[in-house]
Every structure is written in structure tokens, then in C-alpha cells.
């Protein structure tokens, strides 16, 4: 099937404004007659639930955590982009749009990205009004810094805790609606299925994580704001509870999955130390404003960094990319770190790390300035590694961080299932094959504050929605399939904790579907994933009770879904024989070793339709049309 992204026609600059005018509205008095389910309370979910509550809809808001304030958006460090041009350095809506399209290696939709750049400025206004304490200059106005893939300063920040402050802003707006009764909050609930009736999404089935009860909730629309699936790699910078389950349940009910192989591997993370490790910790990209990345010129040079003289160091990003230097996009920085480590020039005990050095910046600006800019990040590094980055360079290595892939949505953020919307990292729409730094916060809040309030109204006003209760057969069927899956897991009663199998799955994915992919490895990975899935269902051990808080059961249910989803991710990576952005196929590279696209054959978004576990999914294509930018080989030299 050729998919239509439903991007409005007409000039790029006026698409969204005209679309807003042509979409239908729901009269304020009628909004309270409509119930909307919002799953997830990160930036996308909290901002959507709060905004829809303010408009007068009945909102049911769900989180797997004990409080919406803990959603993983909170861990975002560096900042949020907006085309304010406060720095007078040549920024504009079109430049933010262009940088994002180019950063995504020309694999995103022009219309969506332009809209994102347009509303970026409104996000900053909204957050400041909520009391987000952004960094300021002495004159009292907002400060900015630079991020990768851009030559302007357009990143707004609150120390190294921008995600925390933006989320607390959205959370406070959400709690205000909870207080007013417009939003009902359901904490410690995990969505385990979506209910589709007459082809429309009409509700969800959740597990109450405290009592174990399987619960049903009906609505006129379901918004999935459940984040990304980076934890399919076991080790990532994602929080422990981030998972693919909600999105994968939707995929199994017919929602197409877009570009699942587009996984961002972030260049600056604290390296792995041992097998016991539960997660990896990011060191913000903002550090590359002042930190210089280097390795020794000689392979196997084991001298401590302060004993390697300057002319024996290779500042490889500055050498290869003089115009962007240390601020090249993430995919480029990650791949280059891998290359120098593969050459035997990596540092630290494992040889899987490069230096991120602040010595020069500290000398130029003084330790106090560096402490003011990055103090909490330096402290975090010190705490985790026991090393003081003011005195010796940080050691960093790439790690799985963010997924550009997600549920396929049209311009209105609606999946191919009417009434099922996906926002934020859970959708696939805006970042193409590589997301630029400080753009995830922007997209989550754009979707929730400024897009969904319009497009949801249009859906409700233009759809025939029959009255549905949770006694409907669709709910009964979904609830019993959830119950059956839980019973099946307990019944295996094997010998291995699910985490042990998850760790092995992660290793397969990292080694063969990670930073560099090739056909043979991908084919091996497919086979290994299938074998692991069989082993999982034959030998997993889930202890405890089903009618009680049972974290092992929660984990096992999610890992069971990874065992299915990993196959789709790998298949997508295998089918796309070009390289683009983060998806690097070794067979397709330029002479300089950069990702080489194949626009003639792959200028489309891949949307996969689930056909059964272990069965070949069906590929649908949405052709990507570029009317306002010229497709070029990305260059950051």
C-alpha cells in the first residue's frame, strides 16, 4: 500500500495555518461530552493531557510510574531548541526546519518538520509563563547555547536539567487540571492493550500495578505518549521502565510501525564497566560546546592523558570536520568514536572510550564558568566513575539513547487506526533517520501543547462515534487476551530470570543491529532473536503473585514484547540497504566513510504491518516528497 501522510498542499510556510482553519472544531459546550485517554505523562503526554483538560475534554491520564513527575523526559539534560533568533546570529524558522531535515538525513516529512520549527517559539513562551527557570543573562533575558548540527545558538536550557524543569512545568499544568477535575490521573497503571471497535480506537486495557487487577477504560480517542524502545538493546540511557509494550500492543492490533530501525546512538555516554550494569548514563551533548574529543594518535598508547603531549593527540572530529568540529551531529560523532576505537586507539581499561577534555576550556574561561555551565553533569560523572573531570578528561563512549522510529502517524499525528494518535518519541514523524540534540523536548511539547489540541478536535468533530461501554465484546476480548498472556508467562515456570534473557537479546542487537550494520550480521541477528524468543517462552521464570505488586512480572511482560519487536527492528534494518543518518549499512558508504543514501530507492518512510509473531510483516511505503530542500550528501566538513 502507498501511504498518504496527509500533509496539506500549498506553500510550506502556510500549510499549518491553513490546515488549522480548515479543520473542524468542537464547540466548548460539547467538549465535556468527549473522553480522551492519554497514556504516558512525559513531556508529550503531560502537555497533551493538561492542554486538553484546559479545553474542557474529560481526560484520563495514565502512567506506569508512581507519579507523572518521574516520566523519563525528566532525564533530558541539555536543552530545547527554538527559532527565536535572540542571538541575532541568523536563525529563523526556515533555518531550524532546514537543520532538522538535513540532520535527519532527508528521511522526514517536510510539512511536519516545518510545523515543528514554527511552534518551537510558542513552547518557550508557554514554559516561561509556567515558571520554568531557564538560564538567563545578566540583563534578565533568556540565554542560549549551541548544539550539534547547528551553527547558531538556539538551545534554551536550565543548567543540565532542562528536561526536568520542562517536565515539572507540564506536570504542574497537568496537576492543576487534576485539581479542577478535568483530568483523572491513574498512576501505577500499565497499558497492555488497545481496544479497537468498528475500526476505531475506543479504549485501553491496563494492569493496576499495585493490585494486579486488569482494568478497562473507554474513550472517544486514545493518545499514545509512551516514549521509545531503546531498552530493546538492554543497555541504553533510557530509564528502567521505558518499554515498547504499549506501542507494540497497538502494532499487533493493526497500527503500522514506522522506521523501527532508526535508533540513535548517542556519542557521549559513560562507558560500560561490567555485566551487572542496569543502564548507561548520558553526558549531555551540551558538553561538546566546551569539551574537545580526542584519542592518542598511536594505537595501544596506554599513557595517562596528561602525559600525552598535544602533538601526539588526535582531535579527530576537529580534524575531519573543521566547520562543525566537536559539534557534528550525533550519528557522525558516534560513528567516528567507534572507528578510532576499532583502530585500537580507544582509551580506558576496556579500550572502548574516547576522551572528552575540558582542560583548555577551564584554562580559557576559569573553573567557575565551567562549573556554572555543567556543574551537575561533572558531579554526576564524578559520582559514577569516581574520577574528577575538572582534573582529568572524561571518558565517553556511544550508547543507545533515543529512537526516531515509532508508530506511523499522518500529519495529524493519527496512526492508521482512526482515533489512535501517537505523540512524542512514540511516533516516527519528525526526526527522520537522526535526531538533532535538543529537539526531542521540542517535539514532545510541540505535539502535546500545540498540535494535538487542533487535530484531535478535527477527528472528534468529523467522526461518527457510537456510544461504547467497557462491557463491549471488544473490551472483553482484549482483557482476556491480556489475562491469558500473564497466565501463560507464569505457566512457563522455567529456570531463567527474564533479565538474563533480556541481557542476551541486548547483546545480539548491539553487536549486529547497532552502530554499524551489514547484511550477514543482520541475518544472523534475525535467527538469534527467534531462537532467544523460543528460549524465553520455554525457560523464563516469573515468581510471585499476579494479584500483587510484582515488578518481575512487569519486566517479563515487557521483555516478551521485546523478543517479538526486535525481529521487526532487525528486518527493517535489513530491508533498508542504504545508509542514512543513524542507520549505517557498511555496504553503503562514501569514500570518506560517511553514510551514503540511495534516494532513488529509499526516499520513503517504511511502515510495517504486523501479520503474526514469526510471520513476515507487510511493508507499506510513504514516499517522501521534498519540494523545499534539495537532497544532498550531508556534509559537516
Amino acid at each position, binding site marked *: 500500500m502507498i501511504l498518504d501522510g496527509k500533509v496539506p498542499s500549498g506553500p510550506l510556510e502556510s500549510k499549518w495555518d491553513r490546515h488549522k482553519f480548515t479543520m473542524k472544531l468542537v464547540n466548548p459546550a460539547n467538549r465535556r461530552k468527549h473522553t480522551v485517554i492519554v497514556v504516558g505523562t512525559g513531556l508529550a503526554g503531560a502537555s497533551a493531557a493538561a492542554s486538553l483538560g484546559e479545553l474542557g475534554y474529560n481526560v484520563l491520564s495514565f502512567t506506569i510510574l508512581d507519579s507523572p513527575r518521574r516520566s523519563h523526559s525528566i*532525564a533530558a539534560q541539555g536543552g530545547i531548541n527554538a527559532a527565536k533568533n535572540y542571538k541575532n546570529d541568523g536563525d529563523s524558522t526556515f533555518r531550524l526546519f532546514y537543520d532538522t531535515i538535513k540532520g535527519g538525513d532527508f528521511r522526514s516529512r517536510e510539512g511536519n518538520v516545518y510545523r515543528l520549527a514554527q511552534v518551537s517559539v510558542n513552547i518557550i513562551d*508557554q514554559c516561561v509563563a509556567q515558571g520554568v527557570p531557564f538560564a538567563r543573562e*545578566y540583563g534578565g533575558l533568556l540565554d542560549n547555547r549551541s548544539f550539534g548540527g547547528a551553527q547558531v545558538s538556539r538551545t534554551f536550557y536550565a543548567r543540565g536539567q532542562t528536561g526536568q524543569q520542562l517536565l*515539572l512545568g507540564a506536570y504542574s*499544568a497537568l496537576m492543576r487540571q487534576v485539581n479542577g477535575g478535568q483530568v483523572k490521573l491513574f498512576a501505577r497503571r500499565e497499558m497492555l492493550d488497545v481496544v479497537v471497535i468498528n475500526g476505531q480506537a475506543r479504549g485501553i486495557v491496563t494492569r493496576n500495578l499495585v493490585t494486579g487487577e486488569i482494568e478497562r477504560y473507554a474513550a472517544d480517542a486514545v493518545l499514545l505518549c509512551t516514549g521509545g524502545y531503546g531498552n530493546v538493546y538492554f543497555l541504553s540511557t533510557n530509564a528502567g521502565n521505558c518499554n515498547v509494550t504499549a506501542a507494540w500492543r497497538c502494532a499487533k492490533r493493526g497500527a503500522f510501525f514506522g522506521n523501527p530501525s532508526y535508533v540513535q546512538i548517542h556519542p557521549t555516554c559513560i562507558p560500560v564497566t561490567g555485566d*551487572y550494569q542496569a543502564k548507561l548514563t548520558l553526558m549531555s551533548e551540551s558538553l561538546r560546546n566546551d569539551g574537545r574529543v580526542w584519542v592518542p594518535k598511536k594505537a595501544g598508547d596506554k599513557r595517562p592523558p596528561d602525559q600525552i603531549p598535544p602533538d601526539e593527540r588526535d582531535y579527530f572530529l576537529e580534524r575531519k570536520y573543521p566547520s562543525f568540529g566537536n559539534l557534528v551531529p550525533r550519528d557522525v560523532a558516534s560513528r567516528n568514536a567507534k572507528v578510532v576505537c576499532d583502530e585500537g586507539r580507544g582509551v580506558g581499561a576496556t579500550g572502548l572510550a574516547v576522551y572528552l577534555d575540558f582542560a583548555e576550556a577551564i584554562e580559557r574561561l576559569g573553573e567557575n564558568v565551567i562549573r556554572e555551565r555543567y556543574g551537575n553533569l561533572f558531579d554526576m560523572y564524578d559520582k559514577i566513575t569516581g574520577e574528577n573531570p575538572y582534573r582529568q578528561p572524561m571518558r565517553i563512549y556511544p550508547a543507545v539513547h533515543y529512537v526516531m522510529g515509532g508508530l506511523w502517524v499522518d500529519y495529524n499525528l493519527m496512526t492508521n487506526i482512526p482515533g489512535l494518535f501517537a505523540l512524542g518519541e512514540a511516533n516516527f514523524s519528525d526526526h527522520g533517520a537522526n535526531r538533532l540534540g535538543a529537539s526531542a523536548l521540542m517535539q514532545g511539547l510541540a505535539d502535546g501543547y500545540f498540535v494535538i489540541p487542533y487535530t484531535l478536535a478535527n477527528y472528534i468533530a468529523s467522526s461518527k462515534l457510537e456510544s461504547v461501554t467497557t462491557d463491549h465484546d471488544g473490551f472483553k476480548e482484549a482483557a482476556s487476551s491480556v489475562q491469558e498472556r500473564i497466565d501463560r508467562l507464569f505457566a512457563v515456570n522455567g529456570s531463567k530470570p527474564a533479565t538474563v534473557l533480556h541481557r542476551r537479546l541486548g547483546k545480539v542487537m548491539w553487536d549486529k543491529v547497532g552502530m554499524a550494520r551489514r547484511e550477514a550480521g543482520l541475518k544472523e541477528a534475525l535467527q538469534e532473536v527467534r531462537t532467544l524468543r523460543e528460549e524465553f517462552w520455554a525457560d523464563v521464570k516469573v515468581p510471585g503473585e499476579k494479584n500483587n505488586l510484582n515488578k518481575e512480572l512487569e519486566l517479563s511482560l515487557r521483555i516478551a514484547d521485546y523478543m517479538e519487536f526486535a525481529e521487526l527492528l532487525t528486518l527493517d534494518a535489513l530491508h533498508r540497504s542504504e545508509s542514512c543518518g543513524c542507520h549505517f549499512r557498511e555496504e553503503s558508504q562514501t569514500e570518506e566513510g560517511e553514510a551514503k543514501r540511495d534516494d532513488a530507492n529509499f526516499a520513503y518512510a517504511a511502515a510495517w504491518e504486523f501479520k503474526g509473531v514469526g510471520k513476515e510483516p507487510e511493508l507499506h511505503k510513504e514516499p517522501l516528497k521534498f519540494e523545499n530542500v534539495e537532497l544532498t550528501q550531508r556534509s559537516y566538513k
Partner: protein
Amino acid sequence: MEQMTLKLSVWRQPHRNAPGKMVDYTVKNVSPDMSFLEVLDILNEDLVRQGEDPIAFDYDCREGICGSCGVVVNGVAHGPQPATTACTLFMRHFKDGDALTVEPWRARAFPVIKDLVVDRSAFDRIVAAGGYISVNTGSAPEANEIPVPKDVADDAMDAATCIGCGACVAACKNASAMLFVGAKVAHLTLLPQGQVERERRVIAMVEQMEKEGFGACSNEGECQAVCPKEISVARISRLNWEYTRALLKRL
């Protein structure tokens, strides 16, 4: 690197209304680079293998920012290291053979759900009562319209870094939530945007705090000592001042 063996004594409680007790475990092969929660992870993997119910504890980001985790280690909320959450408490600060007691937050307003997991929804209800600036989406003025002096913005940011973990309550002999409430009130009151609702906010939050069963402050300062974000007890003085001021203005 040298591996350690630790003796853990952990609070086990099957559910909210069941009695609990301390149960002893020995954990071998603890690496100094492990976090405290990773020690619980490897213990749990062993328990699962033996078919026993693993120890329930809350966690999420494991980098000290989400506020999910929180256990009392050897009588101190989040353990012995200053400015640290349980997830960023590394075992290099302990030595081979150490004995550790591990308990949940204990406070009337934070009932235990299971083992080390407690119900902190009282904090959400305090924020819902007034911990916000009422501004609907779309109605905000241009961001640079109201300048905020840098030192004021920095001070507000210091207060806003609270992660809502509840250690302040757990450390306080009165189970007072005044550091948590004081931090939020300070953050929003310092900023010009927060002035309009200044009085009603502090009154609503304090009233909800009392309704939830948190105790009063008696100036012990334990809250500041355990706060992973080093929020100052001066925020409590400010809270008292703001509350009194609001009450007087209301007269």
C-alpha cells in the same frame, strides 16, 4: 577489581496491610563500581532463580533525577553519601564484609505498598492543590517580555531542582514535608510570573500538606542533610514567612 561480600538486612512486607519483618541476605561478588540498586538487582536475580519473590523497590532513571528510588540504608535516607540518591550510591564507598540494613521510607503519609515501595501520592496532591502558575496553553506572552534578574532565576532554579523523592520526610522525626513544600513555594514565588497566585498558592499547599498527615518542622535540619539536591532549610523559613504573610493579607 576486588569483589566484596555484603550482609544485607532488608525489610520485607508482602503488601500494605500485612506485617513486615527484616530478612537477612548475603550478597557476594559485589563490585566497587556497582550502584546500590545494582546490588539489589543481583540479589533479586538470585532470588528469582531460587523461585522466591524478589525484593520490590521503585527505580526508574538510575541517574539521580527522577526521584523514584529511595530507601533508608543504615538509618540514613539514600545512604551515607551526601547529595546522593540510592541509585547513584556506589559501592566503592563500602568495604568487604559490611552489614547494611535496608528499609523503606517510614512516614504515616507514605504507607508501604510492598517491601521497599511506598505510596508517595500525597506529594502529587500537594502540588495539585496549588503548586503551579495558572496559565492555559496558548495564552503566554512573549518569553522575553518579562526580564528576570539572573540571580533570581538561579535562586528559583536551586529550589526547583527538588526531585520529589521524599527523603526529607523519611529523615524527619516528625515526618514533615516542609522542605518539599518550601522548595516548590520558593521556586514559584521568586519568579515574577508566580506573583499573582502567591498567597492562595502557599495557603492551599500548606493546608493540603496538613491534611495528608505530614508533621510540623522542629528545626532539626535532617531534611537538608539527606536531600540529594542539597535544598537548603532556608526554604522552610521562607515557607513559614510566606504562609504567615498570606494569612495576614487575608485578614
